[in-house]
């Protein structure tokens, strides 16, 4: 069954996007990406280490020619910093796809949607393909779509919390009303959370902590790959109707 995953006219192989943060080493991060089957990974923009000249870089381990980098604005709490970060990211390698994330609170890491909408408008005008981390509020996500977001990325739960999808109804409403891909970003804790996101009809899932903080990140990366695939197939297959009582699976006739 043909089931392409397309964001801003670009086709992706995997519906699972993974982060590259929190790993023990670049090596482990690279192995986890391979196991996950993801063809797009999020990356952060930070100052180079000016004292350590031999410092290894992410690009030494994850080839941006083979895996699409999705620069993020993690750690930005206002539009100015977010725009500055992504413009620098673009200069680094001409990437158009970016993950916009403007935070509003240090404890909850909830996004500041006023600054996020403002930033999306500017970035879209500058030609970026903006994938937007946002709250699971259908009014807000509609607004993001209206200003040109390439993808809506509502949180399942706070970043790094691993709590799983807290508001399935909202995620479902957001998916049903959106014309651009909906990707659940943040809050996935285990493989079943990813499957649920996909079964709700979401187009993809973005996972970092659940893989990087697992006891065996490589194995969890693989689990997430299958979880996303299973959830997608389950959604496309169309689940059976729920019944209140039992219904035998074997014929009732000709019982001996």
């Amino acid at each position, binding site marked *: 069954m043909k089931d392409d995953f397309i964001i801003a006219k670009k086709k992706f192989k995997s519906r699972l996007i993974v*982060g*590259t*943060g*929190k*790993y023990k080493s*670049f090596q482990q*991060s690279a192995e986890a990406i391979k196991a996950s089957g993801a063809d797009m990974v*999020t*990356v*952060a*923009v*930070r*100052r*180079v280490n*000016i004292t350590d*000249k*031999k410092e290894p*870089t*992410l*690009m030494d381990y994850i080839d941006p020619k083979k895996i699409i*980098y999705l*620069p*993020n604005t*993690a750690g930005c709490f206002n539009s100015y910093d977010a725009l*500055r970060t992504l*413009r*620098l*990211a673009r*200069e*680094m*390698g001409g990437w158009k796809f970016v993950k916009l994330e403007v935070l509003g609170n240090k404890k909850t890491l909830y996004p500041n949607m006023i600054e996020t909408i403002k930033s999306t408008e500017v970035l879209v005008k500058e030609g970026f393909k903006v994938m937007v981390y946002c709250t699971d509020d259908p009014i807000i996500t509609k607004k993001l779509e209206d200003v040109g977001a390439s993808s809506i990325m509502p949180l399942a739960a706070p*970043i*790094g919390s691993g709590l799983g999808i807290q508001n399935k109804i909202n995620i479902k409403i957001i998916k049903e009303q959106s014309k651009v891909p909906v990707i659940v970003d*943040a809050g996935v804790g285990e493989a079943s959370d990813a499957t649920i996101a996909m079964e709700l009809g979401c187009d993809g899932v973005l996972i*970092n*902590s659940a893989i*990087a903080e697992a006891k065996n990140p490589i194995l969890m990366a693989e689990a997430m790959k299958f979880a996303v695939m299973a959830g997608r197939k389950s959604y496309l297959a169309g689940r059976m109707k729920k019944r209140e009582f039992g219904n035998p699976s074997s014929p009732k006739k000709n019982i001996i």
Partner: protein
Amino acid sequence: MNNLKKIKIQLNGKKRQIKMGYNLKDLLKLLKKNNNKVAIELNGVIVDKKKYNKIILKKNDKIEIVQFIGGG
């Protein structure tokens, strides 16, 4: 005497002395950073990679050099 040939700049938030006449490409070479793996902001303005060897650093220039690192 040697000081006369050096200028003070601010590099990634830290004060630093470099030789007078250095351009951005020289600076990256000094830091052993690959042109293609970084982006540079000079006094708040992003610099086009093609111009790294044309921009000579001046006293009190504020330079930010960034790269991609792991992130979620």
